[in-house]
Each structure stands twice: as structure tokens, then as C-alpha cells.
């Protein structure tokens, strides 16, 4: 399956992605190709039209897609995170209503992880208020899965229809990278929801963890693409009478890049494998996302250095990798806060 995705991406995405990105074209035709392969159903069960793959396998698929386009990788990752949270934590009727169209790539669902949306109980209902900046796919989403902070400090996940009163999606933001993903701000002002909108406890943890694994896998795919571009270029370009890959400085860089990518990939795979066993086992997901995001940034910058002046032009793909890396570096939370949350796990002696 992973190999089939790799071949499809190399054949149908890689040759055209530059034009889509440079022309800021809507990538929906490419997304349709992913849907044909059934990728949006990677994590849903066969009873909902899905492939029922493990998260570990799905992460490898996201990586392959992102190797061709981080925008598509991010798109796929968001939909997969939402589908798994619904598959494992939504009531049966909700699952049966939502999962089949999500699996077909028809009903886009955007996870909102950001910490700044509050939920309070009002009688039997829940009222959500807050805003989330730069939510991927917000413009196209029919449904949002929103992680909220309750008044008692716990967190719960709500399914909020896009047309629900009080929910506003801003205009698509122009972002440095991941063009075409249709990121926009989402604002909730007194959005009133019945108790059926609340997902079972644990959905919030899983949604964030799978989103993190998806972002990590996207970052690994991007870094891999940047590494391959640098490797190719270093064999083609000659200075001072020999291909630059013969220079020690370039070789050291290539070795460091490959090492970092491998570490990030292993962290991602381990995080995915642990979540396959236990939906609550999410410490590895945060680590994977932080490490892979930094790796995508560092490797794309190194690839640009190896390309020299050409790497700074839009004629080579490293310029896009570097821009896309910015989005993968910036998670839903401030990275310092993220690291402190991670540290808190050791401080409360929960094994990482």
C-alpha cells in the first residue's frame, strides 16, 4: 500500500506540484487522486468504507504523500485525525453518518486543537466560545472537531457543524507555506450544542495525538524530499573542479540531514505504534511532532545552503520546502508551552 502511494505520488503529484504551488492553484484535483486511492479512509474500518489500516501504516502513507506535497500531506493528516477520533469515540449513529463520506473525501473535517476555546455548561446544553488561528482546511470543512477547555480545567472534544450559529470561518489566510490548504481563522461566539455533540472522553487526547503524528509524518516526508533534492543537486553541481558532493563540508551536511530524518521518522513510527495499542498513550506524539517539525525546518534550510543561490529561487523545490517547513514548525500551541507540557509528564512521573 505504501509503495503504491509512493508510485502514485511520483506519477501524479510530483510533476505538477510546482505549478500548483507557484500559481496558488486549488489542489483539489490532486486531492481527488488521493481519494481515488482510498487514502482518506485509511483509518476507518471496512464497515464505513475505509481501509482499516493501523496508524503506523497511515503515518507512512502521509509521509509518502508529503514527500510529493506537504500541502496534501497536511490535508490527509487532518482528515485522518478527525476520522480516527470519530471512529473510536463517537456514538454509533454519528459514526455511520459521518465516516462514509469522510472516507470518500467528500466531507472535510478540520480538527481544532488550539487551547483557547472554552466550553461551559448551560442547562443541558454546552456553550463554546473562543477562537483558533490558521486552522487547516477551515474554508472547506463541513465539520469541526473542537478541543475545548472546560471550566474545571479538563478538556473535551465537540463535533461542531460548520453552519452552526455562532461559528464563523474567516477568509482564507495567505500563509508562507502549505499553500492551497485553505487555512483560516475560526471564531466561536456562544455556539450552543446539545450533549450529542460531545465526543466520549478520550477523543480530545486522541484527536490531538493523531494530529501530531500526522504533522510529524508530513514533516518527515518534507524533510525526506528536501534531502533527496540536496543529494541530487550535490551530484550535479560542480565547483572548484569537482561535484560538490565530493566536498567534505557537503558530505557532513548530508550525513547529519539523513540522521535527523531517520530519528524523526522513528519517533513518528513509535508514537503511531503506541497509539495503535492505547489511545491515551500520547506523549510520544508530542515528541515526534516537535522533533519532526524542527527537522523539516533544519533539513530544508540545509538543502537550501547546499543549493546556494539557486536554492533561494523559486526555480528549485527547496524554496517551497523551506516555506512549507515553517507551517510544520508552528504547532497549535507555542512550542515552549508544548515542551513544558511534555516536561510536566516526567514531573508527575508518567513515563514518556
Amino acid at each position, binding site marked *: 500500500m505504501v509503495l503504491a502511494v509512493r508510485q502514485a505520488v511520483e506519477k501524479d503529484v510530483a510533476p505538477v506540484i510546482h505549478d500548483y504551488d*507557484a500559481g496558488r492553484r486549488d489542489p483539489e484535483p490532486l486531492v481527488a487522486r488521493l481519494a481515488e486511492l482510498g487514502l482518506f479512509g485509511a483509518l476507518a474500518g471496512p464497515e464505513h468504507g475505509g481501509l482499516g489500516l493501523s496508524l503506523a501504516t497511515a503515518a507512512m502513507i502521509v509521509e509518502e504523500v508529503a514527500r510529493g506535497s506537504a500541502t496534501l500531506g497536511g490535508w490527509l493528516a487532518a482528515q485522518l485525525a478527525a476520522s480516527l477520533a470519530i471512529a473510536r469515540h463517537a456514538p454509533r449513529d454519528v459514526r455511520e453518518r459521518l465516516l462514509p463520506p469522510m472516507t470518500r473525501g467528500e466531507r472535510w473535517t478540520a480538527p481544532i486543537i*488550539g487551547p483557547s476555546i472554552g466550553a461551559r455548561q448551560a442547562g443541558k446544553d454546552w456553550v463554546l466560545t473562543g477562537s483558533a*488561528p*490558521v486552522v487547516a482546511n477551515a474554508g472547506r470543512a463541513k465539520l469541526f472537531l473542537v478541543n475545548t477547555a472546560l471550566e474545571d480545567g479538563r478538556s473535551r472534544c465537540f463535533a461542531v457543524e460548520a453552519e452552526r450559529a455562532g461559528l464563523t470561518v474567516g477568509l482564507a*489566510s*495567505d*500563509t*508562507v*507555506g*502549505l499553500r492551497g490548504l485553505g487555512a483560516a481563522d475560526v471564531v466561536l461566539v456562544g455556539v450552543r450544542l446539545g450533549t450529542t455533540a460531545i465526543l466520549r472522553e478520550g477523543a480530545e487526547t486522541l484527536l490531538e495525538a493523531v494530529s501530531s503524528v500526522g504533522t510529524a509524518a508530513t514533516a518527515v516526508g518534507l524533510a525526506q524530499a528536501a534531502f533527496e533534492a540536496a543529494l541530487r543537486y550535490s551530484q550535479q553541481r*560542480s*565547483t*572548484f573542479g569537482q561535484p560538490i558532493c565530493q566536498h567534505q*563540508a*557537503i558530505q557532513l*551536511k548530508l550525513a547529519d540531514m539523513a540522521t535527523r530524518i531517520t530519528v524523526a521518522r522513528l519517533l513518528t513510527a513509535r508514537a503511531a505504534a503506541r497509539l495503535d495499542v492505547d489511545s491515551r498513550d500520547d506523549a510520544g506524539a508530542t515528541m515526534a511532532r516537535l522533533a519532526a517539525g524542527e527537522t523539516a*525546518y533544519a533539513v530544508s*534550510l540545509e538543502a*537550501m*545552503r*547546499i543549493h*546556494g*543561490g539557486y*536554492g*533561494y*529561487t*523559486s*526555480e528549485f523545490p527547496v*524554496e517551497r520546502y*523551506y*516555506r512549507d517547513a*515553517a*507551517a510544520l*514548525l*508552528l*504547532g*497549535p*500551541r*507555542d*512550542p*515552549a508551552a508544548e515542551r513544558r507540557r511534555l516536561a510536566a509528564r516526567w514531573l508527575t512521573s508518567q513515563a514518556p
Partner: protein
Amino acid sequence: MSPGSSRVPSLVDAVREFVERDVRPTASALEHADRYPRDLVERMARMGLFGALVPAQYGGLGLDVTTYARIIEELCRGFMSLAGVINSHTMAALIVYHHGTEEQRLRLLPRFASGQARGGLCLTEPHAGSDVQAIRTVARRDGDHYLLSGSKMFVTNGREGNTFALLALTEPDARPRHRGMSCFIVEKGAPGLEVVKSIAKLGYKGVDTAELVFDGFPCPAANLVGGVEGRGFKHVMSGLETGRINIAARAVGVAQAGLDEAVRVARALPEPPAALADIAMRVESARLVTYWAAAMKDRGDRCDLEAGMAKLHASEAAQEVAVETMRLEGARGQLASGLAERLYRDAPLMIIGEGTNEI
């Protein structure tokens, strides 16, 4: 303080004020539209910045390198591309000043200084970047002209400029190769020069970066710098110290812009982030090493190593500051409406430009 120095801070202040009032409010729109900042460039010409390092007797301001670096820093604090408009121009003017004949100085420098002649350097070729010795552009003597043929890459101001210092081979078979290289002042106007394309870039937008193709372009022999063949490589290399100090100064300006932005963001946070201290430290250390190299240059000391260190340290600092500022802003840091992402796109130029840090 020397008698002349009292007007020096006032020029830096004037540039700072210009940047605050006129550049900062417009830079983002100009940058995203990749539009040449014509009005701002005219203002810079009126301030005399095109002749910043040209001595007063040739119509320039005759500033020292330290003051020049401070001006570049101030410009980049608002919009890095503005420094590109004057810097490669200044490098071309310095080649004429240091290596031209007196006739060439008198004829060309006042035009460089007023901004009537605007331009830059034609060094890099598609296959020869950091490895300048690998250039292939040829200058063949033909009566009282040289006919230039070859292609030049990454020419700053290539489309908007009209006067360039160009390195070419007058004796292609010379060994070592640099003995066959000569420097020319090329003035647009004759046929045989085509700006084949403007190069789309990650950042550094607004200022044009072009590929120029010369095909039998006639350059008057009077514009052979110094009037003697075979010294061009030395002419070009002699500008490297000032060039690297300039890149370092740009990096300081970009880093300072990052610090300004980080402070703005941090004000909205409940407690000051630790990252702010790292950012401030990087900015100040970059500034110190840059001024240190510039002061050596002003004393007339050899400072190739120091200028290289300044360029290396300051460019890496600017990169770190840019990305750290973006991290600080979180998801909003990637928005094109904000400053952080522009700094993130501009910063790598200083790493790659003017001799990549990898060499």
C-alpha cells in the same frame, strides 16, 4: 570626535526616521507584490545614499564603512530589499574608485553618487557562483571596443539598473585563469544586452534580481577598469571585505527587526518568554562583531577574516532570530500579513549571498 563626525549620526538618524515614517508602513505591500520600490529609492537617492562611500571630491558623501554599515542596518530594519538597491551599486562604484583611472573616476563616480548611474555587479554565472574563477563570459577586443559575450546570473538591479561592473575573460587561455580576467563598467544602451528574465525568489522581493545575457555587446575600451587587462579578479576580490561587512550589517538589521517584533508579541503574553533574551543576545553579538570588522576596515587594516566572521556570525544570528520570532508567534507566525514570515524568507539570503557560509 573629528569635525566631520557630528553630521554622521544625524544621517543615520535621518535614515532611521525615513525608515520609521516611510518604509515600515509600505514595505509589506511592496514586498508581497514584488514591486520595485521606486518612490523609496528616489528618496534614498535624494539623501545621497547612492554615493555613501564615494568620496566628496567625486560627488559622494564620503562616509566611513562603520557609518555605511549603520545605514544599511537601519534600512534593513524596515525592508531588507532597500539595502540591495544601494549595496551592489556601491560595490560597483568602489571598484571604479579604487581601481579606475582618474579619467574614469571623474567621468563615472559623480553619476554613481547622484544615482543617475544605478546598478550593480555582474559576476556570478549560471555555472559559477562561489567559484568565481570558473566564469566563461568573454571580452574580445575590437578596435576601441570590447565585445562581451556570456551570461550573468543573479544580477541585483539587473532590470532597473543601467550601469554594472562586469567580470569577463580577456584572455580565456591564461593560466592561472584569474590572470586572464578583466573588469569593465558596462552601461546599458547598445544592442547585444538582454535582460532575459527576472528571477523569482523566496524573499528579497521588490529589488529585481535578473539574468543578463550579453551577445557581442560593445563596451568602450575606455571602460576597462584601470585601463589594463588581467587585473579584474583582483579588483572584484578587493571589494569582498566591504561586501561581507555590508551583508553582516543587513543581517543585523533583519535581526533587529526580529527583536522589535518579538518584543511586540511578548508584550501581549502573561510573562516575558525566555526566548526574548536569546534573541536580544544574538542581535547584540551580531552588531558587535559587525561594527568591529567595520572599524578595522576604517582603520585601513586588512580584515578579510574579520569581515568573514562578521558575515558568518551575523547571518546565522539573523536566521536564528527570524525563526525564533516566528516560533514565538505560534501559528500566526506563518501569516503573510505579519512580519515574522517575511524575516523568515529574507534571512537565508545573508547565509547564501556574498559567498555562501559553507565556503
